[in-house]
């Protein structure tokens, strides 16, 4: 059992009435036992923080899985991974201090979920690219005439750049389409290899339709971009102060 001096790991802030999932467990090995501590209308789901907590796959999954399950029960303010409070008292003090702000955000997120959409260059679109892109065609011919390292690098660089540009253009069109049916949209952190990383706030009842729409956009842009949807998710991207003034259809 981890000692109290490692602190209290905080998973989420939610409404005090929200039930903990019966067999839910926390981070650490063995998985930490969860508890809910409440302060007025709000509660925090916490556990003892395991010693030497790091961003291990196991712990990230535990964090994510618990939040997914909590989100099924009602609105949740998911904490970023790895937030550790000194003790329960400081968690309760925080709940008291921010009560109205937290409650308002929970109200705003009630019945809604996050869907994250990543757009990447289409990897199977090389043929279409070569058929359409004149500069790639030229470099390709050059590499054929005098094959070699330099020519190959130049050709590959041109292909890589062209694939990315095509995907980025498709990504902007995809973003516009999806943003028009979402409640809100915010750009996610830049992810290397992705030309678009965008999170959408969607009514839970609409999430399936939204994912279907993403899928069909993916099909229509498949020669330019690959769409990777993830969700429904806890609203990671819609809890922060900057996410309150959300951008719909932004870049």
């Amino acid at each position, binding site marked *: 059992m981890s000692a109290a001096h490692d602190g209290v790991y905080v998973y989420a802030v939610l409404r005090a009435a929200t039930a903990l999932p019966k067999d839910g467990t926390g981070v650490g090995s063995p998985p930490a036992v969860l508890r809910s501590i409440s302060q007025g209308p709000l509660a925090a789901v916490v556990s003892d923080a395991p010693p030497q907590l790091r*961003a291990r796959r196991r712990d990230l999954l535990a964090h994510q899985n618990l939040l997914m399950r909590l989100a099924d029960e009602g609105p949740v303010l998911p904490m970023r991974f790895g937030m550790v409070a000194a003790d329960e008292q400081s968690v309760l003090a*925080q709940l008291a201090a921010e009560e109205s702000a937290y409650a308002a955000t929970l109200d705003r997120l009630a019945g809604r979920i996050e869907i994250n959409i990543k757009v990447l260059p289409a990897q199977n679109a090389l043929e279409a690219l070569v058929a359409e892109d004149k500069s790639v065609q030229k470099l390709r011919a050059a590499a054929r005439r005098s094959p070699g390292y330099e020519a190959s690098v130049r050709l590959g660089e041109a292909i*890589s750049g062209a694939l990315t540009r095509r995907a980025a253009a498709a990504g902007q069109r995809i973003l516009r389409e999806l943003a028009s049916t979402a409640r809100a949209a915010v750009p996610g952190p830049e992810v290397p290899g992705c030309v678009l990383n965008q999170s959408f706030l969607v009514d839970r009842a609409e999430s399936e339709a939204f994912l279907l729409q993403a899928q069909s956009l993916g099909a229509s842009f498949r020669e330019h971009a690959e769409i990777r949807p993830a969700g429904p998710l806890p609203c990671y991207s819609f809890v922060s102060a900057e996410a309150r003034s959300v951008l719909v259809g932004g870049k």
Partner: protein
Amino acid sequence: MTATTYSDEVVACPPRAGTLYDVLELILDRGMVIDVFIRVSLVGIEILKIDARIVVASVDTYLRFAEACNRLDLERDSGSTTVPELLSGGVAKSVGKRKVRSAAESVGDTVRKAVGGGDDSSEEEDEPHERPKKRRAPARSSESRRRRVEA
């Protein structure tokens, strides 16, 4: 960033929707932060991010793309001629053709072993390779002529 892409390793096992891979940056970079709380072990997190996204924006990637581009030709050699511009002269061509040939043969061998066929089928296998060669030869030379004019 014009030069970023992701590697074959990532493509080979595409992450599924909702898995850790696809939401990693949200778990690590989004979600609520409380200033008075401690955030643990950022060093470990950075390492994990790098591991999770094997991103290559490098000469290796470029060479792989160039190689894939060459493979396009090879696939065409076995049938499709929809974009004749893709076929051009040079050393790479003959090398490529040999590769196609041996690849086709090894596939043929495997099939033959599997079905237990004899030599007759192997002659049949070879024939289709001869005919397209003859048919394409003039197209190629006229094509390379045109390229020279363009260049």
